[in-house]
């Protein structure tokens, strides 16, 4: 009995491109544990879609090994691969439902492929449609459904054969925010109630921070950051990770925002990172004990994995020495950024928070 659901070892996949071969996945190694919700985040072209298709053997690697639930897919025959795929659910960004089949026909198809007798098939389809909340839509056709309903049909279809692993390739990217939340909640239920391991491929940080336990940041076909979702996003090591945080949070003032703040606020302007660290005095208390007047002029805090993350930008007023003292105090536990009289970032020695760097060991 192994605790690893998916194991990729030095996997490389090269596609012929117009400007020479493209290494979509480049010597990538990754382990995904049984029962976790694992996120893979990356911009388009980072190799996410190829990675997820290597896991269910829709693509075969040029080198390296892919092992799913203890079974190597690299040296398997076509027949064995088909067998393996019936144990892996797959949901698609564009749903990929069969328009010529009813909702029940779509959900029942994998069971037909797996050779289930008709009676059992019908029972299972009814059970699945009930689970995803579409029991009344069994006889309808996909064209009659909304996007969120279509994706729930896609999910029911992916779960038909009770797979231990579910792969979601940008499953919510074609949906509006409210429907996205519904689908994410459904995926969470699948993980907690059915114990299914889920791999979520996305370019949206909000999906990862809402749903995932661990995350791998993908860039150029390689994993560039890997770890607990909160750790990765609260102490990003790479620009690509910071960009994801920036798009999800909008907490850090851009240069033109700083310039406008500068004009409105005569005091010193400082951005302080907000992280969930135990045994730490609240920011306001720190300012008070140093006798510094701080007012929030910009910022944002969100929840990542149910823990707060973000940054606040303050205007600080008071004695210059006291402000320096409070900044020294804060820089010992947060990242701080001060801006000069023209609104440009000031360089200042920043103490690195504890724990950063240790995570990097997991990255290969």
């Amino acid at each position, binding site marked *: 009995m192994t605790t690893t659901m998916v194991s990729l070892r030095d996997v490389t996949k090269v596609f012929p491109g117009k400007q020479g071969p493209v290494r979509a996945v480049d010597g990538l190694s990754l382990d995904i544990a049984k029962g976790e919700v694992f996120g893979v985040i990356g911009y388009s072209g980072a190799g996410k879609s190829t990675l997820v298709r290597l896991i*269910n053997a*829709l693509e075969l690697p040029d080198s390296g090994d892919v092992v799913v639930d203890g079974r190597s897919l690299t040296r398997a025959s076509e027949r064995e691969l*088909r*067998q*393996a*795929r*019936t144990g*892996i659910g*797959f949901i*698609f960004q*564009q749903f*990929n*439902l*069969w*328009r*010529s*089949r009813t909702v029940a026909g779509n959900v029942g*198809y*994998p069971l037909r*492929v*797996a050779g289930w007798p008709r009676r059992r098939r019908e029972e299972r389809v009814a059970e699945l449609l009930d689970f995803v909340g579409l029991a009344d839509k069994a006889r309808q*056709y996909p*064209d009659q459904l909304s996007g969120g309903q279509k994706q729930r049909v896609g999910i029911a*279809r992916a779960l*038909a*054969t009770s797979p231990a692993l579910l792969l979601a390739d940008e499953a919510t990217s074609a949906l509006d925010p409210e429907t996205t939340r519904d689908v994410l909640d459904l995926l969470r239920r699948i993980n907690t109630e059915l114990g299914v391991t889920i791999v979520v491929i996305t370019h949206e940080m909000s999906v990862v921070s809402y749903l995932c336990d661990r995350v791998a940041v993908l860039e150029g076909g390689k994993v560039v950051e890997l770890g607990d979702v909160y750790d990765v996003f609260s102490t990003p090591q790479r620009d690509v990770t910071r960009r994801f945080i920036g798009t999800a949070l909008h907490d850090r003032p851009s240069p033109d925002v700083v310039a406008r703040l500068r004009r409105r606020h005569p005091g010193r302007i400082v951005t302080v990172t907000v992280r969930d660290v135990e045994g730490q005095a609240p920011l306001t208390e720190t300012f008070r004990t140093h006798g510094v007047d701080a007012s929030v002029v910009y910022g944002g805090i969100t929840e990542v994995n149910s823990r707060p993350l973000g940054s606040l930008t303050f205007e600080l007023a008071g004695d210059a020495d006291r402000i320096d003292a409070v900044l020294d105090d804060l820089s010992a536990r947060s990242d701080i950024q001060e801006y000069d009289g023209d609104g440009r970032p000031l360089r200042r020695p920043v103490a690195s928070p504890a724990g950063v760097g240790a995570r990097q060991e997991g990255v290969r």
Partner: protein
Amino acid sequence: MTSNGTDLWPLLLAALGETLWMVTATLAAGGLGGLALGTLLYVTRPGNVLANRGVFSVLNVLVNIVRPIPFIIFITAILPLTHSVTGASFGTEAVIFPMAIITVFGTSRIVEQNLVALDPGVIEAARAVGASRIRIVGSIIIPEALGPLILGYTFLFVAIVDMSAMAGAVAGGGLGDFALQYGYQRFNHVVTWVTVAVIVIVVQGAQMVGNGLARRVLRR
């Protein structure tokens, strides 16, 4: 409607029967063969479910060679083959054989075009649930493209009616033959135009049936 004192209506009716028989038989044989050839062209295409560059190239070139041959020349060119297969060199059966052959090649392109337009995602979804390639062709590819295929076959029906007018070349009978023989050659414009009207009605009827079927399949 008479010619030299004979009533032409029974002859016209018989000609209509011959045309319907020729067209139906051709559509059945050629249409099925074309469905098979077109599907083969699609699935063996590089990158598709049964990709096979060799098979695809051979079929592709073969279709390109046969398709442009004018039908009137094709009938005579394959007469020896027609004779050995059907045992006849003239008559309705002798014209159905070459029509069916030409139709196989013509249909294959129509089928291929409709399948190429399929969203590859629906095929990927079937592969992802572990369906075999053969099963995917029969249970996903053809049903998903059925609506456009029906419209393609309706188009084909009209083309075959058109083609069957040349049956007269081998005494094949049918409406085209009738119009040429009793209308055109005897300067009897009434006969020509009445025959044309009958052909128009047949084509119109086929188009209506085809559109209706396609609408049902597409549920629009």
